[in-house]
C-alpha cells in the first residue's frame, strides 16, 4: 500500500499526538477498554499537577493499570529469596504458643505488573511505562520480566527497529521504571494511521491511543480486543501491523 499517494492532498502528519489531546484520547481509550476488555481491570486516570514551562493550565496526568497478576506455579524457584537468617536461634520460639489455627499453605508465586501510559512532551507521543514486582514487593529484574513477555516479543525486542525496552526515571514517580522507548513511535503511528488522518477528524484523535496500544500492548502481552478498533482501522491493523514488526 503506498500511503504516500493516499495522503498526497492531505496535510502531512508527523505521527504525533498533541499534548492537549492526550487526556481526551486517554478517556476514549479507557472507556473502550472497559467495554470490550473484560479479562482485565479498568485503566484509571491519575491527575498530576506538574509545572512545565510550556504547559497549559490543564492538569496533566497518566493512565494506570495496576496489579496485573501473572501466576506462576509453586515449583518455580523464588530466586529473590531472602538471606538465611543466621541469628534465627536468637529468637526465642519457645515462648510463643503453638497455634493450631494457622493454616500452613503453599503459596503460589505471582508476578505483579503495573502499566502506566504517560505522555512524553519531547517526543509528543504516549509512552508505555511498566514495572514488575513479586508478591512481597521486591522488584523483578529485567531478565525475569523478559521471561514473562510473549514469546515473539523477546525476538521483537532484539531485532525490531521500533520497540526497545529501556529503564528510565518515571516522570511523576521519580523512580526507575521500564519503558518502551518512544523514538520510533511517530514513525510507525504514521504508517498505521496516515490514511485516516485529517486535521479535522476528531474521531482520529480519540482513536490515537487505541491504535497506539494495539501495537504497543502486544509487546507486553496486553492484547486489546479488536472490537476497540473501528472498521477502517481493523483493516489497516491487519495489513500494516506485520509491516511494523519487520
Amino acid at each position, binding site marked *: 500500500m503506498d500511503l504516500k499517494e493516499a495522503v498526497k492532498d492531505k496535510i502531512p502528519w508527523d505521527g504525533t499526538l498533541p499534548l492537549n489531546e492526550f487526556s481526551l484520547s486517554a478517556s476514549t481509550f479507557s472507556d473502550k477498554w472497559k467495554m470490550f476488555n*473484560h479479562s*482485565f*481491570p*479498568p485503566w484509571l486516570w491519575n491527575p498530576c499537577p506538574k509545572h512545565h514551562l510550556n504547559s497549559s493550565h490543564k492538569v496533566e496526568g497518566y493512565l494506570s493499570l495496576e496489579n496485573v*497478576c501473572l*501466576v506462576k506455579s509453586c515449583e518455580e524457584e*523464588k530466586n*529473590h*529469596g*531472602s*538471606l*538465611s*537468617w543466621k*541469628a*534465627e536461634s*536468637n*529468637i*526465642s*520460639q519457645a*515462648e*510463643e*504458643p503453638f*497455634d*493450631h*489455627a*494457622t*493454616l*500452613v*499453605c503453599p*503459596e*503460589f508465586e*505471582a508476578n505483579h505488573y503495573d502499566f502506566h501510559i504517560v505522555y512524553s512532551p519531547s517526543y509528543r507521543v504516549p509512552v508505555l511505562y511498566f514495572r514488575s*514486582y513479586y*508478591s*512481597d*514487593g*521486591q*522488584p523483578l*529484574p529485567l531478565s525475569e520480566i523478559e521471561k514473562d513477555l510473549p514469546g515473539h516479543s523477546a525476538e521483537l525486542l532484539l531485532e525490531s*527497529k521500533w520497540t*526497545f525496552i*529501556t*529503564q*528510565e526515571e518515571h516522570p511523576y*514517580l521519580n*523512580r*526507575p521504571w521500564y519503558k518502551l*522507548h518512544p*523514538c520510533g513511535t511517530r514513525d510507525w503511528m504514521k504508517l498505521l494511521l496516515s490514511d485516516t488522518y485529517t486535521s479535522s477528524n476528531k474521531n482520529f484523535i480519540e482513536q490515537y491511543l487505541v491504535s497506539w496500544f494495539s501495537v504497543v500492548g502486544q509487546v507486553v502481552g496486553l492484547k486489546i480486543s479488536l472490537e476497540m478498533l473501528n472498521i477502517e482501522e481493523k483493516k489497516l491493523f491487519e495489513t500494516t501491523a506485520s509491516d511494523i514488526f519487520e
Partner: protein
Amino acid sequence: MAESKSNHQSLLQFAPMQSSVDEGFWHKLSSLKLNKLGIDDSPIPITGFYAPCSHPRVSNYLTLLAESLPSESSEASLIPEPSHGNRNRCSVPGILYNTNTVESFSALDIQNLLKEEARKIWDDIQSGRAVEDCSVLSRFLVISFADLKKWSFHYWFAFPALMLDPPATLVNLSPASQWLSIEEAGSLSAACNEWRGSKSTADIPFFLVTIDPNSRATVRLLKDWEACQSDDHKILFGFYDPCHLPNNPGWPLRNLLALISAKWNLKSVQFFCYRENRGFADMSLSLVGEALITVPQGWKDAIPNAVGWELNNKGKKGPRRISLAQSMDPTRLAVSAADLNLKLMRWRALPSLDLSALSSLRCLLLGAGTLGCQVARMLMAWGVRKITLVDNGKVAMSNPLRQSLYTLDNCLNGGEFKATAAVESLKRIFPAVEAEGIVMAIPMPGHPIDSKDQDSVINDCRRLHDLIDSHDAVFLLTDTRESRWLPTLLCANANKITMTAALGFESFLVMRHGAGPFSSAGDLSAETANSSSSDSCGKDANGKHRLGCYFCNDVVAPTDSTSNRTLDQQCTVTRPGLAPIASALAVELLVGILHHPQGIFAEADINNSVSGASENPLGILPHQIRGSLSQFSQMSLIGYSSSSCTACCHTVVSEYRNRGMEFILEAINHPTYLEDVTGLTELMKSATKFSLDWDKEIDNEDEDEDCFEI
C-alpha cells in the same frame, strides 16, 4: 436454602496475612531516615493498606506504600497523614520499629512487641473503639533495619491475632452463592457493590450483613449490631477477605471473632468472607461459614495470647531481606544510564556496535596531560571501563584550563600527581570506571643517565614492558618525541594496538601504528616461528606491507629535543582547540580498529576510498590523519613501515628481544646508537653525498615531527 458443604466440625484454620512492601516505601523510609530521623529509633506510626481479594488465584496482601509513612516536612510531627482510604486501599494502623544497626534489629524482643500490639487490639475491643473504628482490629507491626550503604532492607511483619483458647471450630464453609438463595445472592452482591462504591464506607473492612425474609440484603456498620437484632433476619458478620483460598477464611476474621466473643458473647457465629473479582462483588468466590466458639467463662478477663509473626519466603519464622541496590544505588543507576546511551546508539544507528569489546578493552594512556585527559573522557563515553594512566608530573596551575580532568584543588600544595588526580576525577564522573594511576617517568633515548640511577631506570623499563603486555590498546600522549620511542618499541614487540596523537602549534597528527614486525595476521597472539625473513621493505611474516609507526618517517633518531630550545618552544604552546580534536580522532580511530575484522592488521583507507566505507559501518580506517587548524582542514595519509625505523623495524625489535635491558640502556645513553644499529648512519652518509632537495625535504619533515604537547 443451599446445603452446607460439610457438617463435621473441624478446627477453623485461617490463611495467614501476607505482607507486600512497595519499593516506594523503602525509598521514603531511606529519605526519612537520612533527612529527618537520623539516629532516632523511636517507633514510627505507619499505615498499611489492604483490600478484599480480587483474583481467584492470587490473594491480596497487606501493602506498605510510600504514603504509609509520615510526611518528612519538619513542621509536621511524626504522625501519618490522615489516610484517604479508597475502595482499593483500606487503611489500617500499624507501627514500625526501625533500628539503626543489624545487631539491634536481631536483639529486638519480638515476643514483647507482639504482646504490646495485641494488648492495643484487646484494649480497643474492651473499650468499644473496635466497634466504632473497626480497622484497628487489623493493627499490625513491622520491625526493620535499613542498610543505607548497601541499599538492602531487613524487615519482619507481625499481624497480631488474639487466640481463642480452645480454638474455634468450623461447622461449615461454602461459597456464598451456594449458601444463599439466588435472590439473596443477587441482593447481597448489589448491597456490597454499593457499600464498596460509596466513599464513606468503601474502606471499612468489617461490617454486618442482614438478610430479611424477602431476600433483601443490607450491609451495615458493626455498631448497628444491637439495633438489627431480629428473629427472622439472618445476620452475618462480614469482613474484607484478602485470601483467595476456597476452604479457608482470611486472617482478619480472627480478631473479629475475638471481638464478637468478648463483646457480644456469641457462641455460634455466621461469617461472610467478602471477596471480589475484577472489582465487583463475587458470590462464588466469597464464602459463608459458621464457627463455634467454646471459650470458657473467664476467657475475656485476661488478655489472650497472640500469634502473628509472618513466615519468610522459605516458610520459616524469620525476617525477610530485600535488596534495592539496582534501583537506588546511584552508581548502579549511572552505569545503567551509560549503558542505555550506548545501547540506544547501537539500536538506532549502529547495529554492529560491539559493546562488549569496548567494555572489556584495557587501555593504557601514557601521558595524563591535555591529550590524556581528553582521551580518557572520550574512552569512557564509548563505554571503555578499564583505563590506566601513566604520568610522572604534578598538576600545575595552568593545567586545569586545558587538561579537562583537573580543577584548581588539584594544583594546591605543590600540586597532586597527575596520574592520581586523573583517576579520582574519572571516578567522580563515572564511579564504575576501573581506573588506575601510575606515577612513573618513561625512559628516553638521548637522555643519558647516571649509573646510580641505572637500576631504577631498568625497573621503569620493565614496568612499562609489563604494563603494555597487560593492556590491549596503548595511547602515546606524552609531550616529547623521544618519550614515545620506548613505548613504540615495546608495543611493536608485543603487537599491541598503538595510537599516537601529537600536536604542533596549529597542526596535529593522529595515527595508528602498524602491526609489529614479528606479527602474523593469522596468529595474533605470538610470533610465528618462521618470522626469520628479516624483511628489508617492512613486511610482516605474512608478506604484507606493515603500516608505519610514529618514527618510521624519521631519518634521524629521536634525541634530546628539549635542551637548547627557547622557553616558548620548550613548554609548548598549541592552539587550545587542537588537543580536543586530536584526542577525539584518536579515540574514534581506535573504535574503528576494534570493529574492523583485521584489527591491527587492517589496511589503510584514504578519504576517497570507496570500498572502505561500505565494509565498516563506522567508516573508513585511515592510517594517519594530519590536520591543520589554520586551514580548518585535515587529510588522511598512509605511511608504510621503514626497515630502518629506530623503533619498530625488525632489527631493532630483534635486538630488544635478544639483549633486553642492555639494548635499551645503550640506546638511552648513546645518542647515535640507534642510528648505527638501523643503518641510518650509513644512509645519512650516503645521502649527504647528494645535496640539494633531499636536505630540504628532511628539514620539512623534521619540523612536522617536532610535535609537542602541552
